[in-house]
Protein backbone atom coordinates (compact mmCIF):
# COMPACT_ATOMS: atom_id res chain seq x y z
CA UNK A 1 0.00 0.00 0.00
CA UNK A 2 1.31 3.42 -0.86
CA UNK A 3 1.92 5.75 2.05
CA UNK A 4 -0.43 8.42 0.73
CA UNK A 5 -3.29 5.92 0.79
CA UNK A 6 -2.22 4.83 4.25
CA UNK A 7 -2.50 8.40 5.50
CA UNK A 8 -5.99 8.68 4.02
CA UNK A 9 -6.97 5.44 5.78
CA UNK A 10 -5.53 6.71 9.07
CA UNK A 11 -7.51 9.94 8.71
CA UNK A 12 -10.68 7.90 8.22
CA UNK A 13 -9.91 5.67 11.21
CA UNK A 14 -9.09 8.66 13.42
CA UNK A 15 -12.34 10.44 12.57
CA UNK A 16 -14.39 7.25 13.06
CA UNK A 17 -12.74 6.85 16.47
CA UNK A 18 -13.55 10.50 17.25
CA UNK A 19 -17.15 9.91 16.14
CA UNK A 20 -17.46 7.00 18.52
CA UNK A 21 -16.27 9.24 21.34
CA UNK A 22 -18.62 12.10 20.43
CA UNK A 23 -21.69 9.93 19.83
CA UNK A 24 -21.04 7.11 22.28
CA UNK A 25 -24.65 6.55 23.38
CA UNK A 26 -25.82 3.00 22.70
CA UNK A 27 -22.42 1.68 21.62
CA UNK A 28 -21.34 -1.52 23.33
CA UNK A 29 -17.78 -2.55 24.06
CA UNK A 30 -15.87 -3.41 20.90
CA UNK A 31 -17.75 -0.97 18.67
CA UNK A 32 -14.52 0.38 17.20
CA UNK A 33 -13.23 -3.16 16.54
CA UNK A 34 -16.46 -4.05 14.76
CA UNK A 35 -16.19 -0.96 12.55
CA UNK A 36 -12.58 -1.74 11.64
CA UNK A 37 -13.38 -5.41 11.02
CA UNK A 38 -16.32 -4.54 8.77
CA UNK A 39 -14.18 -2.01 6.89
CA UNK A 40 -11.45 -4.58 6.25
CA UNK A 41 -14.06 -7.09 5.03
CA UNK A 42 -15.54 -4.43 2.75
CA UNK A 43 -12.13 -3.52 1.33
CA UNK A 44 -11.22 -7.16 0.72
CA UNK A 45 -14.48 -8.15 -0.95
CA UNK A 46 -14.53 -4.89 -2.93
CA UNK A 47 -11.00 -5.55 -4.20
CA UNK A 48 -11.70 -9.20 -5.06
CA UNK A 49 -14.83 -8.17 -6.97
CA UNK A 50 -12.97 -5.43 -8.85
CA UNK A 51 -10.23 -7.93 -9.81
CA UNK A 52 -12.79 -10.45 -11.02
CA UNK A 53 -14.58 -7.82 -13.10
CA UNK A 54 -11.25 -6.70 -14.59
CA UNK A 55 -10.55 -10.28 -15.61
CA UNK A 56 -7.89 -11.05 -13.01
CA UNK A 57 -8.36 -14.30 -11.15
CA UNK A 58 -7.68 -13.68 -7.44
CA UNK A 59 -6.87 -17.34 -6.85
CA UNK A 60 -4.09 -17.42 -9.43
CA UNK A 61 -2.95 -13.84 -8.65
CA UNK A 62 -3.46 -13.50 -4.88
CA UNK A 63 -0.70 -10.91 -4.51
CA UNK A 64 -2.77 -8.49 -6.63
CA UNK A 65 -5.15 -8.16 -3.68
CA UNK A 66 -2.89 -5.65 -1.97
CA UNK A 67 -2.83 -3.31 -4.98
CA UNK A 68 -5.76 -1.33 -3.66
CA UNK A 69 -5.19 1.45 -6.19
CA UNK A 70 -6.00 -1.09 -8.91
CA UNK A 71 -9.64 -0.65 -7.94
CA UNK A 72 -12.17 -1.50 -5.25
CA UNK A 73 -15.76 -2.19 -6.29
CA UNK A 74 -17.91 0.33 -4.41
CA UNK A 75 -21.11 -1.71 -4.38
CA UNK A 76 -19.51 -4.98 -3.30
CA UNK A 77 -17.43 -3.21 -0.65
CA UNK A 78 -20.51 -1.46 0.78
CA UNK A 79 -22.51 -4.68 0.81
CA UNK A 80 -19.71 -6.57 2.55
CA UNK A 81 -19.27 -3.75 5.08
CA UNK A 82 -22.97 -3.62 5.93
CA UNK A 83 -23.37 -7.41 6.05
CA UNK A 84 -20.33 -7.82 8.30
CA UNK A 85 -21.49 -5.03 10.58
CA UNK A 86 -25.02 -6.47 10.76
CA UNK A 87 -23.59 -9.92 11.49
CA UNK A 88 -21.28 -8.65 14.20
CA UNK A 89 -24.09 -6.74 15.94
CA UNK A 90 -26.86 -9.26 15.30
CA UNK A 91 -27.82 -9.62 18.92
CA UNK A 92 -27.92 -5.88 19.47
CA UNK A 93 -29.67 -4.46 16.41
CA UNK A 94 -30.02 -0.91 17.77
CA UNK A 95 -26.23 -0.67 17.90
CA UNK A 96 -26.23 -0.24 14.13
CA UNK A 97 -28.08 3.02 14.71
CA UNK A 98 -25.61 4.03 17.38
CA UNK A 99 -22.62 3.39 15.07
CA UNK A 100 -24.10 5.26 12.10
CA UNK A 101 -22.83 8.82 12.85
CA UNK A 102 -19.29 7.55 13.49
CA UNK A 103 -19.34 5.63 10.20
CA UNK A 104 -20.34 8.80 8.37
CA UNK A 105 -17.61 10.81 10.08
CA UNK A 106 -15.07 8.10 9.19
CA UNK A 107 -16.16 8.28 5.56
CA UNK A 108 -15.81 12.06 5.70
CA UNK A 109 -12.25 11.44 6.90
CA UNK A 110 -11.58 9.09 4.00
CA UNK A 111 -12.68 11.77 1.51
CA UNK A 112 -10.76 14.52 3.33
CA UNK A 113 -7.76 12.16 3.12
CA UNK A 114 -7.52 13.22 -0.53
CA UNK A 115 -5.33 15.98 0.86
CA UNK A 116 -2.55 13.46 1.59
CA UNK A 117 -2.98 11.77 -1.76
CA UNK A 118 -3.13 14.99 -3.79
CA UNK A 119 -6.40 13.72 -5.24
CA UNK A 120 -9.00 16.27 -4.18
CA UNK A 121 -9.71 17.91 -7.52
CA UNK A 122 -12.41 17.04 -10.03
CA UNK A 123 -14.06 18.77 -12.95
CA UNK A 124 -13.07 22.28 -14.09
CA UNK A 125 -14.87 25.16 -12.41
CA UNK A 126 -14.47 28.91 -11.89
CA UNK A 127 -15.45 29.57 -8.29
CA UNK A 128 -13.67 31.42 -5.51
CA UNK A 129 -12.48 28.21 -3.86
CA UNK A 130 -11.45 26.24 -6.94
CA UNK A 131 -7.77 25.76 -7.77
CA UNK A 132 -5.69 24.13 -10.51
CA UNK A 133 -3.52 21.04 -10.55
CA UNK A 134 0.16 21.76 -10.09
CA UNK A 135 1.55 23.38 -13.23
CA UNK A 136 -1.89 23.87 -14.76
CA UNK A 137 -4.02 26.97 -15.36
CA UNK A 138 -7.37 25.15 -15.30
CA UNK A 139 -9.14 25.62 -11.95
CA UNK A 140 -11.00 22.59 -10.63
CA UNK A 141 -13.59 21.79 -7.98
CA UNK A 142 -12.19 20.25 -4.78
CA UNK A 143 -14.86 17.58 -5.13
CA UNK A 144 -13.56 15.29 -2.41
CA UNK A 145 -13.74 18.14 0.11
CA UNK A 146 -17.36 18.71 -0.96
CA UNK A 147 -18.06 15.05 -0.23
CA UNK A 148 -16.20 15.24 3.11
CA UNK A 149 -18.22 18.27 4.19
CA UNK A 150 -21.47 16.64 3.05
CA UNK A 151 -20.72 13.46 5.00
CA UNK A 152 -19.66 15.36 8.13
CA UNK A 153 -22.89 17.37 8.05
CA UNK A 154 -24.82 14.12 7.48
CA UNK A 155 -23.07 12.60 10.53
CA UNK A 156 -24.26 15.45 12.71
CA UNK A 157 -27.81 15.36 11.26
CA UNK A 158 -28.06 11.58 11.76
CA UNK A 159 -26.87 11.98 15.36
CA UNK A 160 -29.80 14.33 15.94
CA UNK A 161 -32.39 11.76 14.81
CA UNK A 162 -34.43 9.71 17.24
CA UNK A 163 -33.78 6.11 18.25
CA UNK A 164 -36.41 4.34 16.16
CA UNK A 165 -35.11 1.02 14.82
CA UNK A 166 -32.82 1.52 11.75
CA UNK A 167 -33.76 5.19 11.43
CA UNK A 168 -30.17 6.33 11.91
CA UNK A 169 -28.52 3.42 10.10
CA UNK A 170 -30.88 3.60 7.10
CA UNK A 171 -30.61 7.37 6.88
CA UNK A 172 -26.81 7.13 7.08
CA UNK A 173 -26.69 4.66 4.18
CA UNK A 174 -29.04 6.81 2.08
CA UNK A 175 -27.08 9.97 2.97
CA UNK A 176 -23.73 8.38 2.03
CA UNK A 177 -25.09 7.27 -1.33
CA UNK A 178 -26.78 10.65 -1.80
CA UNK A 179 -23.59 12.63 -1.14
CA UNK A 180 -21.63 10.42 -3.54
CA UNK A 181 -24.38 10.69 -6.15
CA UNK A 182 -24.50 14.48 -5.92
CA UNK A 183 -20.72 14.86 -6.20
CA UNK A 184 -20.20 12.17 -8.85
CA UNK A 185 -20.75 14.52 -11.84
CA UNK A 186 -17.75 16.52 -10.62
CA UNK A 187 -15.41 13.49 -10.74
CA UNK A 188 -13.72 12.72 -14.07
CA UNK A 189 -14.15 9.01 -14.71
CA UNK A 190 -13.12 6.33 -17.19
CA UNK A 191 -15.85 3.81 -16.43
CA UNK A 192 -18.68 6.25 -15.68
CA UNK A 193 -18.71 5.71 -11.90
CA UNK A 194 -20.96 3.47 -9.81
CA UNK A 195 -24.05 5.68 -10.15
CA UNK A 196 -26.49 2.77 -10.14
CA UNK A 197 -25.04 1.55 -6.84
CA UNK A 198 -25.62 4.99 -5.34
CA UNK A 199 -29.28 4.88 -6.33
CA UNK A 200 -29.41 1.38 -4.88
CA UNK A 201 -27.88 2.64 -1.61
CA UNK A 202 -30.49 5.37 -1.33
CA UNK A 203 -33.29 2.86 -1.98
CA UNK A 204 -31.95 0.30 0.51
CA UNK A 205 -31.33 2.97 3.16
CA UNK A 206 -34.83 4.41 2.89
CA UNK A 207 -36.31 0.90 2.80
CA UNK A 208 -34.47 0.07 6.02
CA UNK A 209 -35.95 3.17 7.66
CA UNK A 210 -39.44 2.16 6.52
CA UNK A 211 -38.92 -1.50 7.54
CA UNK A 212 -37.71 -0.48 11.00
CA UNK A 213 -40.71 1.78 11.43
CA UNK A 214 -43.12 -0.99 10.39
CA UNK A 215 -41.43 -3.59 12.61
CA UNK A 216 -41.65 -1.32 15.63
CA UNK A 217 -45.25 -0.46 14.85
CA UNK A 218 -46.26 -4.11 14.50
CA UNK A 219 -44.52 -4.87 17.81
CA UNK A 220 -46.48 -2.09 19.50
CA UNK A 221 -49.78 -3.09 17.88
CA UNK A 222 -49.64 -6.72 19.01
CA UNK A 223 -52.01 -7.09 21.98
CA UNK A 224 -50.32 -8.55 25.05
Amino acid at each position, binding site marked *: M*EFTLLWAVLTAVALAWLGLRIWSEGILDGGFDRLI*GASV*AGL*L*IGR*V*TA*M*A*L*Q*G*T*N*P*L*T*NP*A*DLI*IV*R*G*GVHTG*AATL*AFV*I*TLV*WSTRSTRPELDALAPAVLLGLAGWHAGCFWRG*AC*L*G*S*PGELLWTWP*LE*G*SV*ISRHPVEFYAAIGLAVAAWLVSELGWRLWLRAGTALAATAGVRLLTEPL*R*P*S*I*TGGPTLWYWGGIAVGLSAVAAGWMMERSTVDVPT
Partner: protein
Amino acid sequence: MPRKLLLLGLLVSACSGGVADDSVAVDDLPAVTAAGFESHLATLDKPAVVNVWASWCLPCRSEAPLLNEAHLRYGDEIEFIGVDVQDSQGAAKEFLAEFGLDFTHFFDRDRAIPNFYGGLGTPITMFFASNGELATIHNGVIDERTLALNIDELRQTDH
Protein backbone atom coordinates in the same frame (compact mmCIF):
# COMPACT_ATOMS: atom_id res chain seq x y z
CA MET B 1 -19.15 -15.97 8.97
CA PRO B 2 -16.55 -13.49 7.60
CA ARG B 3 -14.45 -16.51 6.58
CA LYS B 4 -17.45 -17.94 4.74
CA LEU B 5 -18.05 -14.59 3.04
CA LEU B 6 -14.42 -14.39 2.01
CA LEU B 7 -14.47 -17.92 0.64
CA LEU B 8 -17.69 -17.18 -1.23
CA GLY B 9 -16.17 -14.04 -2.71
CA LEU B 10 -13.04 -15.88 -3.77
CA LEU B 11 -15.09 -18.68 -5.33
CA VAL B 12 -17.26 -16.25 -7.26
CA SER B 13 -14.16 -14.44 -8.44
CA ALA B 14 -12.48 -17.67 -9.42
CA CYS B 15 -15.47 -18.64 -11.51
CA SER B 16 -15.75 -15.30 -13.24
CA GLY B 17 -12.06 -14.45 -13.55
CA GLY B 18 -10.70 -13.97 -17.04
CA VAL B 19 -8.51 -16.49 -18.76
CA ALA B 20 -5.51 -15.49 -20.83
CA ASP B 21 -6.11 -15.86 -24.55
CA ASP B 22 -2.90 -17.56 -25.60
CA SER B 23 -4.06 -17.74 -29.17
CA VAL B 24 -3.52 -13.99 -29.68
CA ALA B 25 -0.32 -13.51 -31.64
CA VAL B 26 1.82 -10.53 -30.70
CA ASP B 27 4.82 -9.36 -32.73
CA ASP B 28 8.15 -8.53 -31.14
CA LEU B 29 8.06 -5.09 -29.55
CA PRO B 30 10.21 -2.52 -31.41
CA ALA B 31 13.23 -1.38 -29.41
CA VAL B 32 13.60 2.36 -28.97
CA THR B 33 16.09 4.84 -27.53
CA ALA B 34 15.15 7.88 -25.46
CA ALA B 35 15.96 10.17 -28.38
CA GLY B 36 13.94 8.02 -30.76
CA PHE B 37 11.02 8.03 -28.37
CA GLU B 38 11.14 11.81 -28.03
CA SER B 39 11.11 12.13 -31.80
CA HIS B 40 8.16 9.77 -32.01
CA LEU B 41 6.18 11.90 -29.55
CA ALA B 42 6.97 15.04 -31.53
CA THR B 43 5.40 13.53 -34.65
CA LEU B 44 2.08 12.90 -32.92
CA ASP B 45 -0.66 15.45 -33.49
CA LYS B 46 -2.43 14.68 -30.24
CA PRO B 47 -1.65 14.35 -26.53
CA ALA B 48 -0.22 11.07 -25.29
CA VAL B 49 -0.49 8.84 -22.25
CA VAL B 50 2.68 6.78 -21.84
CA ASN B 51 2.61 3.82 -19.48
CA VAL B 52 5.89 2.26 -18.38
CA TRP B 53 5.31 -1.39 -17.51
CA ALA B 54 6.96 -4.79 -17.21
CA SER B 55 5.61 -8.32 -17.20
CA TRP B 56 7.19 -9.01 -13.78
CA CYS B 57 5.60 -5.91 -12.23
CA LEU B 58 2.68 -6.79 -10.00
CA PRO B 59 0.94 -3.38 -9.97
CA CYS B 60 1.24 -3.27 -13.77
CA ARG B 61 -1.13 -6.24 -13.91
CA SER B 62 -3.62 -4.34 -11.77
CA GLU B 63 -3.65 -1.20 -13.86
CA ALA B 64 -3.58 -2.90 -17.28
CA PRO B 65 -7.39 -3.37 -17.53
CA LEU B 66 -7.90 0.28 -16.61
CA LEU B 67 -5.49 1.45 -19.30
CA ASN B 68 -7.26 -0.77 -21.80
CA GLU B 69 -10.59 0.79 -20.89
CA ALA B 70 -9.14 4.31 -21.10
CA HIS B 71 -7.69 3.50 -24.51
CA LEU B 72 -11.05 2.23 -25.75
CA ARG B 73 -12.76 5.39 -24.53
CA TYR B 74 -10.22 8.08 -25.42
CA GLY B 75 -8.12 6.40 -28.11
CA ASP B 76 -9.48 8.73 -30.80
CA GLU B 77 -8.34 11.87 -28.98
CA ILE B 78 -5.30 10.64 -27.10
CA GLU B 79 -2.40 8.43 -28.14
CA PHE B 80 -1.76 5.56 -25.73
CA ILE B 81 1.77 4.17 -25.71
CA GLY B 82 3.30 1.40 -23.61
CA VAL B 83 6.99 1.16 -22.76
CA ASP B 84 8.11 -2.28 -21.57
CA VAL B 85 11.24 -2.01 -19.40
CA GLN B 86 13.80 -4.48 -18.04
CA ASP B 87 11.95 -7.36 -19.60
CA SER B 88 12.27 -10.12 -22.18
CA GLN B 89 10.40 -10.11 -25.49
CA GLY B 90 8.75 -13.44 -24.68
CA ALA B 91 7.41 -12.39 -21.29
CA ALA B 92 6.32 -9.03 -22.69
CA LYS B 93 4.34 -10.69 -25.46
CA GLU B 94 2.65 -13.04 -23.01
CA PHE B 95 1.65 -10.06 -20.88
CA LEU B 96 0.19 -8.21 -23.89
CA ALA B 97 -1.67 -11.31 -25.01
CA GLU B 98 -3.11 -11.81 -21.52
CA PHE B 99 -4.41 -8.27 -21.16
CA GLY B 100 -5.06 -7.49 -24.82
CA LEU B 101 -3.41 -4.09 -24.60
CA ASP B 102 -4.16 -3.06 -28.15
CA PHE B 103 -2.01 0.04 -28.54
CA THR B 104 1.58 0.83 -29.51
CA HIS B 105 4.29 -0.62 -27.25
CA PHE B 106 8.04 -0.13 -27.27
CA PHE B 107 10.78 -2.30 -25.81
CA ASP B 108 13.24 -0.53 -23.51
CA ARG B 109 15.44 -3.11 -21.81
CA ASP B 110 17.72 -0.51 -20.16
CA ARG B 111 14.97 1.83 -18.83
CA ALA B 112 16.37 4.63 -20.97
CA ILE B 113 12.97 6.28 -21.45
CA PRO B 114 11.79 6.53 -17.82
CA ASN B 115 15.31 7.56 -16.80
CA PHE B 116 15.31 10.29 -19.45
CA TYR B 117 12.04 11.77 -18.13
CA GLY B 118 12.91 11.31 -14.44
CA GLY B 119 10.47 8.50 -13.65
CA LEU B 120 10.98 6.30 -10.61
CA GLY B 121 10.16 2.60 -10.28
CA THR B 122 7.60 0.65 -12.28
CA PRO B 123 4.86 1.31 -13.26
CA ILE B 124 4.99 4.95 -14.31
CA THR B 125 2.35 6.86 -16.24
CA MET B 126 3.43 9.99 -18.12
CA PHE B 127 1.13 12.52 -19.72
CA PHE B 128 2.39 14.47 -22.75
CA ALA B 129 0.84 17.52 -24.43
CA SER B 130 0.33 17.37 -28.18
CA ASN B 131 3.60 19.27 -28.73
CA GLY B 132 5.46 16.39 -27.08
CA GLU B 133 6.17 18.21 -23.80
CA LEU B 134 5.87 16.23 -20.60
CA ALA B 135 2.89 17.60 -18.63
CA THR B 136 2.70 15.24 -15.64
CA ILE B 137 4.48 12.16 -14.41
CA HIS B 138 2.84 9.68 -12.01
CA ASN B 139 5.16 7.22 -10.31
CA GLY B 140 3.54 4.00 -9.09
CA VAL B 141 0.24 2.31 -9.86
CA ILE B 142 -2.39 4.74 -11.09
CA ASP B 143 -6.03 4.64 -10.00
CA GLU B 144 -9.04 5.42 -12.15
CA ARG B 145 -9.66 8.89 -10.75
CA THR B 146 -6.05 10.03 -11.19
CA LEU B 147 -5.90 8.66 -14.73
CA ALA B 148 -9.24 10.25 -15.62
CA LEU B 149 -8.24 13.58 -14.09
CA ASN B 150 -4.96 13.78 -15.98
CA ILE B 151 -6.59 12.70 -19.24
CA ASP B 152 -9.21 15.41 -18.69
CA GLU B 153 -6.39 17.90 -18.10
CA LEU B 154 -4.78 16.93 -21.43
CA ARG B 155 -8.10 17.23 -23.24
CA GLN B 156 -8.94 20.61 -21.68
CA THR B 157 -5.47 22.03 -22.35
CA ASP B 158 -5.41 20.92 -25.96
CA HIS B 159 -8.79 22.41 -26.87
